[in-house]
Structure formats: structure tokens, C-alpha cells
């Protein structure tokens, strides 16, 4: 859009952040961008809380004995660390915070299909978070974030409050997913065909399918657990001929697909970042798009790999193992396509791209070590050791959290209208990279040497690994604080961001930074989201769209160019 600078000047007052003022204009807003920003603040708060709990755990583990936490306190802290990180941070991080901001803008729509429901989801998230804080501040939950029976039916901890919190958060997640599916299906503007959608939208769509199909099962599972505690239904209690393993099946039927709720949107972010910051069209668009859907569907068939040692028929175990391997195929397709996208591209190592490269390294380690755990013979000794802890931290934290940060940096100029300090952003990424590997690589080693997870004390032979892991955790914390500092500094001192600072071709870069209330003043022009040829760099003004000469414009707007 050649006249975007003047459009921006005209509407300087009309941006979604300042078009209305006052607390209620935010608390009761139906604007998806404001709701996304409120989520962003909320999930970052949850991340801070979960991170502090993690540092407490790591500090305790620096010494083989209980030096400032009792065993019971240690159990409570790791339970809350896990529950807060999973339910309050990772699951809503990308879809609810970034997704809410981006989905309608990338799609070229004015809002999500159900803005009231969207606000309702946010408040459900807040209420669920309050339930968790109650559990934290009362006697303390000590079941682990998985609430395994029969322990969870017997412990004195606030299981009912926590399960109701999970139930409410689950519905928050379901309604977000429902909103996105309907938005993407029914609110696409003319010209926005399925295969012109940015890959972030494909990833969000796949995620939403999982949210809608898997989360209700978690809802009924935790509801039955609460009923077990309140009216003694006994179906998970061996005392009444109930079956605790049934709980595990129900729980993992949700919680394995939930892993893809966490990682798929992160992969969507990486697809955008790789292409934009390499200034090269994405390699294998359709493969990446379809692999998102494939991961979502395969993800429903592999929950048993969490229960290889819980007692299942041998045939079942083998089938679950084989299916688990099949999920690695679409994941690997994505990684190879990202690498191929960079090949012969003009790679710019700015902060979002550094985080994206960080993601690829860490996620690949996380994914490959998953194969050890999916293999039956190696899973037996590795089950419930630090190897598992390291594996899922590489996927969840090295994957999702790093992708989330990359996404936050990438869209920060769009969301806030401010540029950040790229040098310090890169430093934060480097410190995170070093700290992360220092924390979790030693855990692979001690896990394979038999260090079991969830213990406050350990055999002195593991001390050196735990010490390094603790140093690493504090380094990682430092890196994240630098990142936070960069973002806060940009809010206070940042330069005004141009409409298109990176040279992206997706629709969100066509509207002003920050976008106006209705996202687009004029209907956006839908083109190939990864065609960078018409974009020209104009220094301070960022990248500008130069209309190709009429002869090169495709005559049929619906023609797919991939």
C-alpha cells in the first residue's frame, strides 16, 4: 500500500490502544486486539510466577539434602510450577495472547466471530487463575500437575479447588478454539482462500481443532475427580473396585493432544519468522500446512505412551509406540522445510530470527529425545527420570516458550507501535540459549544414569549435574529478565514503529502500527502471503508495498500462488 504513511498520519489518534480510555474501556472491551493484550499481560504474569517457582526448585536441588524446603513443600512447589506453567501459561500463551491479536488481522477480518464469547473466555481464564492462586495460598496442592489417582483422591491438598480451576480454564480454552475455527471458516474476506492463509493461521486452526475435541474430555475427567472427592463416586478408587488407570487414560487422552495445543501455534510462529526474516518465500507451504493438520489428528492416537509402565496389554503398548513414531514425521517435515526456507535467503539476524533459530535447535533436541521415550525398551529405564523432565522442557520451554518470545518480538512493533533495542534483544536470546542448555543438558545425563524425577533429595553422585543445572536455571532467568527489560524499555523509550518494520507480506503488515479499531480502513488486498518481491526497503519508514505493473497482476484473484 503506497499511501500507507499518509493513512497512518491521518489516523494517528485512531489506534486500538488509545481510541477509548479508562479502565472499563479495557475491562469490557470486545476488541480482539485489546483482549489479546490483556491475555499477554496475564500469561506473562503467570510465566513470572511459574518461573519463580522453578528457580525455588532449582535452588533447593543445588544441594543433595533438604536445605530450605521440606519434602512436602518441595512437592507443593513442583506441583504449582507444573500446573501454573501448563494451564496458565503455555496453553493460552500463543493461541490466546498472540492468536487473539493476530488471527483476525492476518485474515483480513474486523474481529473474531464471537467477540463477547472471546471476552468471556478471558474472564474464565482469570477466574481459573484465581482458583489456582487459592490452591497456592491455602494448604498447597501436592499431586503433581497430572492429578494422578489414587493419590489425588486421598491427599489433604485442595484438589477440588484446583480441579475446578482446570475445568474453568478448559472452557476458556474451548471457547477460544471454537471462536477461531468459526472465524477462519466464515469470516475470510474475498480473495483469502485457504491456501492464501498465512501458515500461522493453519497452525492456529489445527490447534483449535484439538482444543475443541480434547479439552471436554479433560473437563469431564477433572469433574469426575472432584465428584470422587466430594460425593465418593469411587470409579477411580480401588477400594470400591474403581480403576485408577482409567483416570490416566482419560487424563492423557486430553493431555497428549494438549502437548500439540502448546507446540503447534509455536510452529506456526516459526513458519512466519523463518520466511519473513529470510526474505524468501516459505519452502513447501502445503507440506507445512498439511503437517499441522496431520499432527493435530495423529496426536489423538498416541496418549498411551505416557503409560507404558502403568499396566496395559502388550499389543496396546506396541501399537501406541508405533503410532508415537508416526507423529515425528510431520514434525520433521516442518523442520526440514524451515531449513530449506533459509537456504539462499537473505537471512537477517534480528531478535525474532535469533529466537526462531534458537527454537529450531532446542525443539530438534526435544523431538529427537522423544524417540528414546517412545521406544519401549529404552522407555522402561528412562520412565520417570530426569531424562523425561529434560525432554519435555526442551519441547515445551525450548520450543513453545522460545517461539512465543520470538513471536512477541516479531509482532511487538505491530502490537504497541514501538521498536525495541535489537542489540539487547539478541543478547537476551543468547543468554537464554546458553542458560537453557546448561539447565537441561545435564538433566539428560543424570536421567539416563537413573536420577528419578520429583524428589527433593538425591544421591550425592548426581550433585555435579544438579549444580550445573541450577546455575543454568539462574542464567536462563537472567536472559528472560533481559528480554523483559528490552520490552519495557521499548514501551517507555522506543522509537515509533513503521507499519512494516520487517518486510512481511502477510496482511497484518498492511495496517498501521498499532492497528486502528477496525483493523483496516480500506479492504486489504489479499496476495500470496510469502511473496516478497513487491516490497521495497525505505529506511526509517520500513518496508513499503509497491504495486506490481498491471501486466504482472494475476488476472484471477482466486488463483493460488504457492
Amino acid at each position, binding site marked *: 500500500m503506497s499511501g500507507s504513511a499518509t493513512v497512518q498520519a491521518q489516523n494517528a489518534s485512531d489506534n486500538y490502544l488509545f481510541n477509548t480510555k479508562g479502565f472499563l474501556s479495557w475491562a469490557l472491551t470486545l476488541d480482539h486486539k485489546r483482549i489479546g493484550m490483556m491475555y499477554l499481560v496475564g500469561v506473562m504474569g503467570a510465566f513470572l510466577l511459574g518461573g519463580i517457582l522453578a528457580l525455588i526448585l532449582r535452588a533447593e536441588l543445588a544441594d543433595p539434602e533438604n536445605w530450605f524446603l521440606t519434602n512436602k513443600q518441595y512437592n507443593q512447589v513442583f506441583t504449582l510450577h507444573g500446573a501454573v506453567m501448563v494451564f496458565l501459561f503455555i496453553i493460552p500463551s500463543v493461541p490466546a495472547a498472540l492468536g487473539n491479536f493476530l488471527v483476525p488481522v492476518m485474515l483480513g477480518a474486523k474481529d473474531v466471530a464471537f467477540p463477547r464469547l472471546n471476552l468471556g473466555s478471558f474472564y474464565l481464564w482469570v477466574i481459573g487463575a484465581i482458583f489456582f492462586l487459592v490452591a497456592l495460598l491455602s494448604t498447597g496442592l501436592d499431586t503433581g500437575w497430572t492429578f494422578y489417582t489414587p493419590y489425588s483422591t486421598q491427599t489433604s491438598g485442595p484438589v477440588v479447588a484446583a480441579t475446578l480451576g482446570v475445568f474453568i480454564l478448559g472452557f476458556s480454552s474451548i471457547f477460544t478454539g471454537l471462536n477461531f475455527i468459526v472465524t477462519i471458516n466464515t469470516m475470510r474476506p474475498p480473495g483469502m482462500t485457504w491456501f492464501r492463509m498465512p501458515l500461522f493461521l493453519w497452525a492456529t486452526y489445527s490447534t483449535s481443532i484439538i482444543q*475443541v475435541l480434547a479439552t471436554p474430555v479433560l473437563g469431564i475427567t477433572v469433574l469426575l475427580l472432584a465428584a470422587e472427592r466430594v460425593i465418593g463416586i469411587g*470409579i477411580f478408587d480401588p477400594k470400591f473396585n474403581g480403576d485408577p488407570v482409567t483416570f490416566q487414560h482419560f487424563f492423557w487422552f486430553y493431555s497428549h493432544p494438549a502437548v500439540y495445543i502448546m507446540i503447534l501455534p509455536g510452529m506456526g510462529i516459526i513458519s512466519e519468522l523463518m520466511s519473513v526474516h529470510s526474505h524468501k518465500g516459505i519452502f513447501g507451504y502445503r507440506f507445512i500446512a498439511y503437517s499441522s493438520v496431520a499432527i493435530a489428528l495423529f496426536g489423538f492416537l498416541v496418549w498411551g505412551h505416557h503409560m507404558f509402565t502403568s499396566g496395559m496389554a502388550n499389543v496396546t503398548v506396541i501399537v501406541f509406540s508405533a503410532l508415537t513414531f508416526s507423529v515425528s514425521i510431520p514434525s520433521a517435515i516442518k523442520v526440514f522445510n524451515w531449513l530449506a526456507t533459509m537456504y539462499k535467503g537473505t537471512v537477517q539476524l534480528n531478535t525474532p530470527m535469533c529466537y526462531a533459530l534458537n527454537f529450531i535447535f532446542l525443539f530438534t533436541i526435544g523431538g529427537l529425545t522423544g524417540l528414546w521415550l517412545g521406544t519401549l525398551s529404552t522407555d522402561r529405564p528412562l520412565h520417570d527420570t530426569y531424562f523425561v523432565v529434560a525432554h519435555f522442557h526442551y519441547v515445551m520451554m525450548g520450543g513453545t516458550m522460545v517461539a512465543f518470545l520470538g513471536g512477541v518480538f516479531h509482532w511487538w512493533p505491530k502490537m504497541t507501535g514501538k521498536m525495541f533495542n535489537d542489540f539487547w534483544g539478541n543478547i537476551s536470546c543468547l543468554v537464554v540459549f546458553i542458560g537453557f542448555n546448561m539447565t537441561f543438558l545435564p538433566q539428560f545425563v543424570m536421567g539416563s544414569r537413573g536420577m528419578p524425577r520429583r524428589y527433593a533429595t538425591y544421591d550425592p553422585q548426581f550433585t555435579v549435574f544438579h549444580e550445573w543445572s541450577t546455575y543454568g536455571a539462574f542464567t536462563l532467568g537472567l536472559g528472560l529478565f533481559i528480554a523483559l527489560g528490552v520490552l519495557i524499555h521499548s514501551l517507555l523509550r522506543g522509537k515509533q514503529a513503521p507499519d512494516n518494520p520487517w518486510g512481511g507480506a502477510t496482511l497484518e503488515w498492511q495496517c498501521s502500527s498499532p492497528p486502528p479499531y477496525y483493523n483496516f480502513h480500506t479492504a486489504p488486498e489479499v496476495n500470496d502471503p510469502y511473496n516478497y518481491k513487491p516490497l521495497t526497503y525505505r529506511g526509517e519508514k520500513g518496508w513499503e508495498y509497491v504495486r506490481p505493473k498491471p501486466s504482472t497482476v494475476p488476472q484471477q484473484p482466486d488463483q493460488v500462488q504457492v
Partner: protein
Amino acid sequence: MSHDHAADHGHDHPSFLAHHFDDPEQQFDAGKLGIWIFLVTEVLFFSGMFCAYALYRSRNPEVFTFASTFLNTKLGAFNTGVLLFSSLTMAWGVRCAQLRQRGGLVLCLALTLICASIFLGVKAVEYTHKWDMGLLPAHFYLSQYAQTIEHHDWAPFKELVGQAHMTWLTKLCILPGLITIGFAAWLFSTLKSKERRKIEVAGSMLLTALAFFGGIGIGRVFQAAEEAAAAHSTDHGDKHAATDADHKHDAASADHATAASADKTMLVSTDSQTKIGAPSIEQIDQKGGAGLFFSIYYCMTGVHAVHILGGMVVLTWLLVRASKDVFHEQYFGPVDYVGLYWHLVDLIWIYLFPLLYLIR
């Protein structure tokens, strides 16, 4: 929200069309897809309990055969009919909305609400009768045939919900009673104001509240008939049932008698199957046996009843809006969506009824 931007957008935006939609068709399609996806989540929500049912039934078939004899099939069948009829009135209501028949829509919604209320009344009779007998979830279940256990000594459950000075049914009637009085007072005040639309709504709500007590009445009639039949069979029946009945309050005798016949068949089959180790009646009539059946029974029907209650709340909202004549050919989406939800709740009951009451 949209007034300050009205200049840029939608000069021809009618009031029923939300600002972010282009036309009524898009709005309707979005809502329709949304409600279908919501129904999918509802099905999956119930699927957890259907799975639990299938699992425990396949493991302990004789427990389910034994315990389901305590359920009153006639009450279940009556309720099935009530819900089916309410689905008809709901579907009719959708048609009325499409044709802009305000009166017809209000009538259909009111009838649907009344049916829902009757359903809950009958359910209240069923539930309270079982609570009186100690047919409770596993932890509180009282063995029905163990001679050593006092039949009404179920202290833990009493501790949980307070000492029972009144019958369970009376207690359950307190809140609906208060609601009825409230609606009656509201109707009275609207009669004074003579606003026809308010009178319609208040009247419908009062009838709905009264229908709960109607349902209780019908339930009691069915229950009494069952008891009479049971007493009859006890007179002619076998010795075991007669001696058993001596211990029992008359309110409890009906289900005991039905179960007594089951007991007999059970004992017969036990005799014939001792070689292959079929469980005895004592093993079945336990917290971990029949108690587990009632756990599943209460979970499934309880969650279903909560869905009926939720449906009543949205139906009431529709009734208020329908009385204001907001629905027409271009805008009937909400009626349609609530209708779909209502049919699903109905459909779930269509599965629950045979699974819990009929398969023996």
C-alpha cells in the same frame, strides 16, 4: 461500541447485525457453525462418562443387571416422552420464529420450558426415593440385602448434607417453592401494569415453576402404582422378599420388591454358575458393586439434569426476547441455536434411558 465508527462502516447495517459481520447470512452461518462445534464438545464431554459406563459394565455385567432393577422404568419412560414432546415444541418454535409468528413462538418456548420443568420434577421423585433407600454413590451406598446392616444408618451422607428432619423430597421443594412464589408475585404485579408482553413472560414462568410440582405429583402417582403392584407381588411372593420387606419403610418397599425378584433370579443364576465363579448377591450388593453403578447413574443423569437447567436459562432468555418480537425471517439464529442444543440434550437422554433403565 459501533456508534463512533458508524460513519466508516455499514451504512446499511441493520440493528440485529453485529458490526463485524458483512451481512445477515454471514452472521447466521457463523452462529450455526459455532453451535455445532459447541455440540461436538458437549458430546465429547459426555463421552468420558459413556466410556466409564462401557468399561465398568463390561467388567461387571451382573452388577449392572442387578442394580438397574432399582430404577423405575415407568418414570424413565414417561420422562423420555416428555423430552421428546419438548423437542417437538422447540422445533415448532424455530419455525414460528422463521415465520415471524410472535405468539406461536412464545407459546412454543413456554411449552418447552414447562416440559423441562416436569422432567426435573419426575427426576426429583426418582432421586429422593433412592436417597431414602440408601441407593447412593459408592462411598455412601448401603447394601440392600445385608441383614447385619441397619438400612437407614448412613451417617456419612447425613453428615455431608445435614440431618434429615424432613424427607429429601420436601427439602428439594424449598427452592422451587420460593421461585414459584416469586414468579406469582411478579405475575401479580404485571397484571396490575397490564403490559401484555410482561404478563405473558411472567405467566409462562409461573406455569414453568408450577410444572415442577406437577412433575412431582405425576412421579408420586407412578411411584405409588409401583408400590401397590409390589405389595401385591409380595403377598404372593416368595418368603425371602416377605421377610425382607418387614424391615423396610413402606416408602422403600416398591424398589425392594422389584429388586427382590431380581434377587431371586440372581440367586438362581448364581446357583447355576458357581462353577465358573460368578459373583454372589452379597458380592454384588456392595459399595464396590451396585454402589459403582449408582455412582455412574448419578454422574450421568446429574450432568444431564444440569444441562436441562442450563437449557431452561437460555430458553427463558429467548422467551423474554421473543415477547419483545425481535425474531423474524432475517434474524432467528438464536432460536435455531438453542433449538439444536435442546435436541442434543434430548438425544443424550435417549441414550441414557435404555443404557441405565432398560438393558437388564
